[in-house]
């Protein structure tokens, strides 16, 4: 049965009103309207009417789902209307069908939890459903759980509302990368270079977008960042025929299923998108072609325009430090471009404008301004689409096939970048480290091994039986070094070099011992 208690009257009125009944049980009727409450009015919207009846329900009552009970059959209902509908079915005499007709006073409800702010009658809530939900949410047990993100809810309708939006929300960072999960977005954002560039603080509010708002929000967030394409572009030059698609620079959802090559790139216009894609593909192809054919021979890539200038491009891309073949070409292109800006010092350089307009044709001497501070991660946070390859090519054509690579590069604003790729550095340094160690040891212990050969040794393992008794393919250098190693071990070499079958003259440089041939 429903437990129905009521509280004592609002403290304010109890003290100030004459003639009020102040018994401990039973209904309390608050004083007449002309009495002013002593407490200041709080700032809650919909503050309870001072003459409203304050009801304090017990926790059990609040959590009960079937408050309204039929007195005839004891069936419980969540809503009063449902109960009334049900009562009709009992064919009650007319009189009993009506509810108690006394004037209904406005009721407000307080939370039974003493530490809660709504326990105070001046902060009572006017709606029964409201107080029930509040009690559940704040003080109740969270029984409803979202499977996707494991957020928990006490009120089922809250959970349902969450399920509608969970997983469909997308978070966009100022740098353009898209995330499907809040935590990866947050972590990214904290370290993102876009943050470092004084973005508006209100961006956190604007960042969360739903799919439907995708396009409009894109425009909004884009305007703030300096690195973003200006919304208005002059009509792009006619698109090139893409040869082989290497990279499609479209915004991508940054989840673990996304292949590494799809970086987040912000674009505004469909036309620009197509142009950028074509340009990027074309240029990237040229890059791919030329990096793989490092000699710079012209190759046909199935594209007339590119073929005409492949020699030129080859010379551009061959001259910088050789990019490791394992790197994806778009990344290397990006590194190249960005590394380039870093080293560019010429004032009369063509600005590396991000606009897809024919700005590259301008001979303005403005320094490159729209590039963010170059860093090697740009292929990850690359905001702008590729430079218009058409423009570059046409520029090249204007310049003519120059004899000197450097002058051409400088004129275009490109120059051989410093060894900019971190992978490069690591490779070189690790070899360096090992030569270093080796040379140290050679000095100290006379036991050096051709360590750089150890690391970059003959790529194909020769066919050997288990203990390596076959020799085959050992270079002179490593052999020489190895025997020095042997001697340092104090091993006797006699008969020790039991490697079969190959001329071993250079193998044993201690000189006096003949290798035993097996």
């Amino acid at each position, binding site marked *: 049965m429903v437990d129905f208690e009521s509280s004592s009257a609002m403290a304010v009125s109890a003290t100030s009103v004459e003639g009020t009944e102040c018994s401990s049980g039973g209904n309390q009727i608050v004083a007449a309207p002309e009495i002013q409450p002593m407490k200041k009015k709080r700032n809650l919207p919909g503050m309870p009417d001072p003459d409203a009846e304050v009801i304090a329900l017990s926790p059990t009552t609040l959590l009960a789902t079937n408050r309204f009970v039929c007195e005839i059959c004891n069936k419980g209902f969540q809503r009063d209307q449902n109960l009334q509908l049900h009562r009709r079915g009992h064919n009650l005499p007319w009189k009993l069908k009506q509810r108690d007709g006394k004037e209904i006073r406005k009721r407000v409800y307080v939370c039974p939890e003493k530490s809660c702010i709504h326990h105070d009658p001046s902060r009572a809530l006017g709606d029964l459903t409201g107080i029930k939900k509040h009690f559940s949410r704040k003080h109740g047990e969270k029984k409803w759980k979202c499977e996707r993100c494991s957020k928990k809810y006490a009120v089922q309708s809250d959970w349902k509302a969450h399920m509608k939006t969970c997983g469909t929300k997308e978070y966009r960072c100022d740098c353009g990368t898209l995330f499907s999960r809040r935590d990866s977005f947050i972590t990214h954002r904290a370290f993102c270079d876009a943050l470092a560039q004084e973005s508006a603080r209100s961006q956190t509010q604007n960042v969360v977008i739903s799919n439907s708002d995708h396009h409009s929000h894109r425009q909004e967030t884009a305007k703030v960042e300096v690195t973003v394409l200006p919304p208005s572009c002059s009509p792009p030059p006619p698109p090139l025929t893409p040869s082989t698609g290497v990279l499609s620079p479209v915004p991508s959802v940054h989840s673990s299923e996304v292949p590494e090559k799809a970086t987040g790139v912000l674009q505004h216009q469909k036309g620009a998108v197509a142009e950028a894609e074509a340009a990027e593909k074309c240029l990237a192809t040229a890059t791919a072609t030329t990096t793989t054919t490092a000699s710079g021979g012209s190759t046909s890539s199935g594209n007339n325009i590119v073929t005409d200038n492949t020699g030129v491009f080859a010379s551009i891309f061959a001259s910088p430090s050789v990019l490791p073949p394992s790197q994806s070409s778009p990344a290397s292109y990006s590194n190249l471009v960005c590394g380039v800006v870093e080293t560019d010092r010429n004032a009369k350089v063509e600005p590396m404008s991000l606009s897809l307009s024919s700005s590259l044709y301008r001979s303005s001497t403005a320094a490159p301004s729209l590039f963010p501070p170059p860093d090697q991660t740009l292929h990850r946070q690359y905001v702008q689409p590729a430079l218009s390859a058409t423009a570059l090519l046409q520029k090249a054509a204007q310049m003519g096939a120059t004899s000197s690579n450097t002058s051409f590069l400088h004129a275009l604003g490109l120059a051989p970048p410093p060894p900019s790729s971190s992978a490069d550095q690591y490779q070189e340094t690790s070899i360096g480290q090992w030569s270093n160690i080796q040379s140290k040891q050679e000095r100290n212990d006379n036991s050096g091994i051709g360590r750089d050969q150890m690391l970059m040794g003959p790529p194909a393992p020769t066919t050997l039986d288990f203990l390596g008794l076959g020799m085959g393919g050992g270079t002179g250098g490593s052999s020489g070094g190895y025997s020095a190693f042997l001697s340092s071990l*104090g091993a006797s070499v006699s008969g020790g070099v039991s490697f079969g079958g190959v001329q071993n003259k250079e193998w044993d440089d201690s000189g006096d011992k003949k290798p035993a041939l097996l």
Partner: protein
Amino acid sequence: MDHHQQYFSPPPHHHDSVSANTWPSVLLMEAAHAVAEKNHHRLKHLMWLLNELSSPYGDTNQKLSAYFLQSLFTCIMDSGDRCYQILSSAADKMLSFESTRNMELKFQEVSPWTTFGHVACNGAIMEAFNGKTKLHIIDVSTTYCTQWPTFMDAIATGTDQTPHLRLTTVIAAKFCGAGVQKVMREISHRMEKFARLMGVPFKLNVLHHSGDLSELNMKRLDIQDDEALAINLNGTFRSVCSHRRDHLLSMFHGLNPNILTIVEEEADLNMGSFNGFEFLKGFQECLRWFRVYFEALDESFPTTSSQRLMLERSAGRAVMNLVACSPEESVERRETAAKWSSRLHACGFSPVRCRDEVSDDVVALLRRYREGWSTNTAETVAGIFLRWKETPVVWASAWKPI
């Protein structure tokens, strides 16, 4: 030191039987045997062969072979300490904010190896800090503060009134260099900026501590009485000298934190000196552990990844540190969860049970990644494990002083 058999035996790593038959394991163990038996003749054959087959740019087998061969060689030459120092300072010189940030974030994007610990510990810390208004976290970790943005997000959005957060990050590196200091300076700026963005009153203090962590001067931590205190040890307890670990725990106990969280990798590498036949046992566990790590990396990252290469090189240095360095200089001596737990118990800590919400969060986290990752708790030891294909790899747990 076989205590771990009593407390918690990890499920038989079926990597053991499978991985033990791979050519690097076979050859390297043979080589290790040759070292222990001082059979130079055989050793040079094996090392020559391994040399031919190794490459740090090849497949997992070739990579393991390369790094282990390098370490074995250095061990024989008795130049482990010096070599490790050279490699570490070279790596430090090349450190940059961008490369570090990219490596960490990429790793967290493709693998839950580090995010697992973050989620578990943040959950435990949030619970311990419930209702507190001034928070102080002492963060001794190797993840360059990537744990804290989500924590800040949680306190900014999950509480009615955002508490004050003070973070003291201790960079414990026996070979602490200018590179990591430079990186941490940049990270400080970013964290402070981010905190402003999130509306979290925030203060960050970075302490660089060279030498053993057990010698850290507690005064530098600037503990305040009116703040709730959490101590977060992520991947750094293994760097403490073995016989000083209990001492450090006692010192932490003396600070009376609300909670102490610890994340460590699940391997039994705290052998004594790698000499004689002790060498073999330790070497074998080393092989097993790093195979697991390299395989997990290989399956998480795309085929060509400079970030993975950085992580592999770092692991290669760890291998050298374990195989070739003297125990006093070693900073990679992992212990099993059971061993850590018995230390914590002995130093006056009792475990805080992992709440359901936290394990749910971890499960939700793992859904983000590829197949192969799972989580479980163990009956005999507190905390939760991250497992890669049934092998427990990372352990996270929370403790409070009794």
